């Protein structure tokens, strides 16, 4: 299980990469492992829409369950990963890379500061996977 050190993590298993004001969002290795084979990803936030913290940005469906992906910080959607609708399996094979879901221009990048770092998130996962 990978926990890249340059990312921030949420309780609900999203990862965030912050570069300036731009945050890239996806779901973690732990999340994809728990969901098993991902068969459908729908990015529901369109480019240009303003999202508040906690709003759904994508919907992920596996052979076992459906779940929503939420943004941990408010901002404007500047790019969505169109490739995921045709190749949802990228979420399984490359959750931190090719399977990024949306890019947001954050209104307040400091909101990301309160999220977990890799070490804290690893612990959060270990607590749930006994």
């Amino acid at each position: 299980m990978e926990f890249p050190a340059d990312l921030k993590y949420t309780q609900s298993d999203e990862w965030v990469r912050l570069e300036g004001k731009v945050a890239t969002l996806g779901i973690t290795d732990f999340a994809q492992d728990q969901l098993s084979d991902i068969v459908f990803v729908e990015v529901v936030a369109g480019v240009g829409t303003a999202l508040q913290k906690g709003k759904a940005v994508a919907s992920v469906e596996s052979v076992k369950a459906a779940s929503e992906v939420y943004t941990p910080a408010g901002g404007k959607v500047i790019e969505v990963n169109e490739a995921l609708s045709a190749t949802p399996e990228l979420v399984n094979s490359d959750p931190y890379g090719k399977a990024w879901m949306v890019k947001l221009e954050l209104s307040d990048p400091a909101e990301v500061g309160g999220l977990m770092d890799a070490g804290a998130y690893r612990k959060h996962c270990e607590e749930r996977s006994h």
Partner: protein
Amino acid sequence: MAYIPHTDEERRAMLAAIGVGRMEDLYEAVPAEVRFPDLDLPEAISEMEILQELQDLSEANLDTRHFASFLGAGAYNHFIPSAVDAILRRAEFYTAYTPYQPEISQGTLQAIFEYQSLICNLTGMEVSNASHYDGATALAEAVILALNHHRGARRKIVLSPAIHPHARQVVRTYMQGMEIEVVGGDRLENDSRALAGLIDDQTAMVAVQYPDFFGRVEDFTALGRAAHAAGALLCVSVNPLPLGLLKPPSAFDADVVVGEGQTLGIPLSFGGPYLGHFTTKKEFVRKMAGRLVGETLDSRGQRGFVLTLSTREQHIKREKATSNICTNVALMALASAVYLSVMGKQGVRRVAELCYHKAHYAAEKIGALPEYRIWNTGPFFHEFVVACPIPVAAINTALLDYQILGGYDLGQDYPELKNHMLLAVTEMNSREEIDALAAALAEVGHA
């Protein structure tokens, strides 16, 4: 293995396990005076006697075997080849319950797959689900699909007034408490152009019927364009049988095609069980309720069938489900698949042609009667509206003396159409029957 599931010994063990002395003690919460009430039932009679009694009862019905029927309005009297029943009554199909371990039931899956393929062929759409309970439910599910497609951001549905009134009622029932605005259906004069005028940036879907409730056949291409221009979906509710003859609804760029499939080999049987067909474009398949069977190859390269989209409401989406319907009417879907296979492309077209020509012959005969007027002005399929000189209920009662079941009283649903009768003519109506209807109407209309 003992065939009797619960032996006395097992019952005793179960009662002991829960600390109850006798079975009767389980009913203690029920007041004694209502626990075993005396039922006022007649004396027991023999099987021979009861069969006779039931036979007498059923003969009190005015059925289509003894009466010439011109009643349609969503349920139609068509010929059903014997092969349909012969296959349906095979125990493998007839007694099978929903396939919870689906891939073990290859026959059931194949039957559903064939049904889906045939319905797609008829409607011209890309994907079909395994069916819904009836046409009205399928229409309501189409509305749910549209609302979810827009993720709740659009809360208005435009319904044509020429959609079956019962189906519109079911849609309204589904939408209760959801704060969805359902417009358009309450004004008879809302034609395609008026419906297009009701579409705005809040509209999730526009739904029409084809042929419509009054039998009219209309090209909905312009309406579809207007819907799409506003980002709304177009749903067309169809009777699939005339599609053997008419342009398929896919030609209007419909996003969802639903409807009542009773016309495909399913008897009238007092209103059910019927068949709700549901097809859509591939892009909406994840928003579709129910299940979808697909064809694949197994590990040995042999053809097999799988639940490509399983009962996702139950197993996958659960509390995130957008519909609470996972079930389908597999036996009715099979009936329609057998019907379509037996009739073939030419056969279905021939039935549709017979319906069309006989209905037009009837409209011509009735339109020539001075007391009656044909309300339809444009093209129609096998149903048409007749303006009558006296109330429809009175005409229908009088027609019974002529061994004729008259048409549907439109005044029940459309106040503007008081004294208007909706007549349906199918391949089952002979020319003699149609002539007899016209003659009877002439006599009845004088009264």
